């Protein structure tokens, strides 16, 4: 099934930041997806030229606890960051319109996924637009009213570059299945917050579930971010086998 190209309708779009857009697709024959999976998108130019890229799914794959994420089984949402030198992302962020069609393959992936029956503590760590597949997991967690302890560390340049800010706040305030949320601002911090600074090993340990609780980690971001964070976690005694990583340009990245 995942090898087949299907025609999807663009049902709705919304900007998350000035350079990132969420695109809701209706895909006939889709029956949900796992949190953290990705899809391939294929665009065809009028002269027949085609380009394919992989994008992480942002929606939770289940009934969302918070509107507007209560999607039918045959819909999903992607969030695409526009890359200045990108070939496909500028079209998806700037030109694609509601009612347009494009081709989709997938959903794909059985490793960088969270299944809602898993009650192990989960630590999500996002660098920039790497938050997308982790948001899918946070949404799935809330939708399932999962008892699994969930914590997210989100490293971003500035408050304005954050995706899903209001919804993340709502997930953090959810009493049934709370998401413990920590932000690290690297260039510009909001008023009243500590001065911006890059994440350090010590800062990482203060904002993540300790090794004594044996959490599963899902880390997504740029390669230097993922390399640094996963290395610090191993140094701190976390088992490498419980650290799952994904990078831009890798599976489900946002090239």
């Amino acid at each position, binding site marked *: 099934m995942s090898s087949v*190209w299907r025609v999807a309708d663009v049902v709705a779009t919304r900007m998350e930041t000035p350079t990132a857009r969420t695109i809701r697709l209706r895909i006939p024959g889709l029956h949900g997806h796992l949190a953290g999976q990705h899809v391939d998108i294929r665009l065809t*130019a009028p002269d027949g030229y085609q380009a394919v890229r992989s994008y992480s799914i942002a929606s939770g794959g289940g009934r969302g606890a918070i509107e507007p994420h209560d999607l039918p089984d045959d819909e999903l949402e992607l969030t695409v960051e526009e890359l200045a030198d990108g070939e496909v992302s500028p*079209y998806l962020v700037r030109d694609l319109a509601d009612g347009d069609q494009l081709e989709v393959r997938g959903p*794909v*992936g059985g*490793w960088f996924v969270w299944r809602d029956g898993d009650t192990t503590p989960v630590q999500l760590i996002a660098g920039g637009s790497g938050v997308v597949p982790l948001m899918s997991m946070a949404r799935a967690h809330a939708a399932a009213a999962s008892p699994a302890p969930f914590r997210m560390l989100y490293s971003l340049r500035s408050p304005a570059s954050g995706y899903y800010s209001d919804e993340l706040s709502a997930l953090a305030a959810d009493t049934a299945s709370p998401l413990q949320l920590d932000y690290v601002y690297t260039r510009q911090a909001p008023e009243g917050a500590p001065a911006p600074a890059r994440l350090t090993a010590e800062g990482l340990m203060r904002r993540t579930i300790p090794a004594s609780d044996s959490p599963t980690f899902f880390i997504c971001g740029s390669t230097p971010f993922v390399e640094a964070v996963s290395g610090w*976690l191993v140094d701190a005694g976390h088992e490498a*086998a419980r650290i799952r990583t994904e990078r831009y340009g890798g599976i489900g990245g946002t090239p």
Partner: protein
Amino acid sequence: MGIISSGFSGRRRADDPRLPPGQYLTEGFPVLSAGPTPRIAKDDWAFTITTEKGDVHRWNWDEFLALPQEDVSTDIHCVTSWSKLGTSWRGVALDTLFKDVDTSFEYTMAHSYGGYTTNVPLADLLGGKAWVAHSFDGKDLEPEHGGPARLLVPHLYFWKSAKWVNGLQMLPQDQPGFWEQNGYNMYGDPWKEQRYW
């Protein structure tokens, strides 16, 4: 032909005959890994081939470097749709490593430091088609790209070129490795677009 996106033109043309279907060219070298990068000292490194009889052929780092070395210029194709043309590698051909290996099994499972596995038929490792590579662009292979050494099987999608490789186990039948159990094709021919299940 697919659904036409009238506003989409695309900057890069796919008219290069070296580019398999559905691939685009990249000048960078993206990283794809399932977990943390294992740290492997060359002094601790070893590569083994294990046969059905339990024979273990083993090379430590110095023994591995003492084998005949080959320079390989090749195109590589990642399942996530990027291809990189004319990459330069140095390493040991699997033909060399299998010279004294006696096996009648036709399949292999490649094993890596960190626990990663991927399955490759033996026929795809022999005949000048595959190497254990330790250098990229004239430099030691970076850990995030699989250093000290990785498998290089460039005619298949690049997940088959297992990073941090430390051994091959001979198998009587094809069995799925790590990505193959997680949605990816058993064989992975980029020219046939064998990406997923």
